[in-house]
């Protein structure tokens, strides 16, 4: 029995590509995989395939900093992200895999009166919607993060913070692998290294995909390609309100335990937390112009490191272990796009995850699967249709990302 625990088992099977699937999901990131997982969980007879041009998790899902929180600004955003956080609380059990989900909390720091005002507004909205979220004083911040620099007279004094205790972090790769394994066990076919190079159509009806391994027919095609969504949109001639921006992050060498929460400063465009291994994870806002390039820059490293030291002076001299970049599908209102597209049948978008999509993956997959299986739009994702841009119903979720502060 014990040896079984340590036996080497593949997480998913290698599959031959069939000529037909009920549902083809393009993109083996956390959203494509969680959608596949819930589809197969709800309906075991469906033939579902997930295709990725690279390995599973090669996109932003394998590159993010894994912060999960629900202290958003809009009623739409708060409800959606809180539902996701609740799913994360059960997810290790559900997937039978330790996702290292730990609810270490979150501090959104305010350095000016106007930021405090806006954090206060968020705490009120959060509390109204049953999300634990309080404005706290500098001394209360110090009690949670003793290392924080409270000196007065510095350029970015700490005037308070929005405290959101249920926030947390998880092992991002494990979430990808957990959903992939769960989907595989429920009969989903996973096809890494299978690039979709075209989408076949008859009139306004999508009929399948052309892949690097040949043509496949499909009853429904779902695009879950995040930063690459515009390349899929081009294949079927639809317009999407997306710009692809790179987001960078870096980690330091492991240091002694110094903070056990996640802290973020919108004004400094920087956030920090410490992993269980002791590495400080430091990230910020997107680069200043759109590109599909995954190159990291010294400029961003300097900016993030400088601002991290402004918050935690003890970090001065810490050595950088590595820095990396992922690409993000930024929408004009920092909210996702889920659902069908007018004028195209048998096709669905799941995108607009920008720099905030890791935390959303469980509820996104679950609601997208419900939408596909019932044809009815679940209430939580009703606000996130593509038509909102044509009908003037933008969401303006300015608490989704540090990027929202600079755009």
């Amino acid at each position, binding site marked *: 029995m014990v040896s079984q625990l340590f036996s080497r088992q593949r997480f998913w099977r290698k599959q031959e590509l069939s000529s037909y699937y009920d549902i083809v999901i393009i993109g083996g990131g956390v959203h494509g995989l969680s959608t596949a997982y819930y589809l197969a969980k709800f309906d075991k007879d469906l033939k579902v395939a997930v295709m990725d041009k690279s390995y599973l998790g090669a996109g932003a899902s394998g590159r993010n900093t894994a912060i999960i929180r629900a202290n958003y600004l809009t009623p739409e955003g708060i409800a959606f992200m809180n539902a996701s956080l609740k799913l994360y609380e059960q997810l290790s059990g559900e997937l039978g895999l330790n996702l290292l989900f730990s609810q270490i909390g979150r501090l959104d720091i305010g350095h000016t009166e106007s930021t405090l005002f806006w954090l206060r507004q968020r705490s009120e909205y959060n509390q109204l919607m049953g999300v634990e979220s309080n404005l706290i004083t500098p001394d209360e911040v110090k009690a949670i993060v003793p290392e924080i620099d409270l000196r007065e007279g510095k350029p970015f004094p700490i005037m308070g913070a929005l405290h959101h205790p249920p926030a947390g972090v998880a092992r991002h790769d494990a979430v990808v692998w957990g959903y992939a394994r769960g989907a595989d066990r429920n009969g989903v076919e996973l096809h890494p290294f299978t690039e979709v190079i075209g989408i076949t159509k008859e009139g306004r009806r999508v009929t399948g995909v052309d892949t690097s391994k040949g043509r496949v027919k499909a009853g429904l095609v779902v695009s879950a390609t995040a930063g690459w969504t515009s*390349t899929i949109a081009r294949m079927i001639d639809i317009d999407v309100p997306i710009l692809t921006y790179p987001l960078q992050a870096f980690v330091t060498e492991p240091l002694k335990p110094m903070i056990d929460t996640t802290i973020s400063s919108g004004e400094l465009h920087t956030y920090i937390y410490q992993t269980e291994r002791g590495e400080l994870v430091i990230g910020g806002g997107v680069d200043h112009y759109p590109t599909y*390039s995954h190159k990291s820059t010294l400029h961003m490293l300097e900016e993030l490191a400088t601002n991290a030291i402004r918050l935690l002076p003890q970090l001065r001299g810490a050595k950088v272990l590595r820095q990396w970049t992922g690409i993000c599908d930024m929408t*004009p209102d920092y909210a996702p796009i889920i659902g069908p597209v007018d004028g195209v049948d048998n096709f669905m978008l799941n995108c607009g995850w920008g720099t905030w999509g890791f935390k959303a993956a469980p509820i996104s997959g679950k609601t997208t699967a419900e939408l596909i299986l019932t044809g009815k739009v679940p209430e939580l994702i009703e606000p996130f249709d593509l038509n909102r841009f044509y009908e003037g119903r933008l969401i303006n979720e300015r608490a989704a990302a540090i990027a929202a502060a600079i755009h």
Partner: protein
Amino acid sequence: MALLIECPNCGSRDVHEFRHGGEISDLSERKGISDSDLELTKYFYFARNNAGDSKEWWYHSFGCRQWFVAYRNTVSDQIRETEWPEKRLDS
């Protein structure tokens, strides 16, 4: 990406001296006051966001403060060419 941009006025300068001003595509065209709501919506929110060749506006904000046109490959992030716009906006 240590990108250098060739400003038609100032020559080769670091990318951080510049501001990206958006793509020049069928979606970015405005006829002017006669635009319909739909055209305005597309203009404001939608983009080709092409992976590959892109013609776009750049602004030398920490330099000569001139707008110019660049041809960039958005995957390799190389700028092939920069030039003054054919028609200045104020002409």
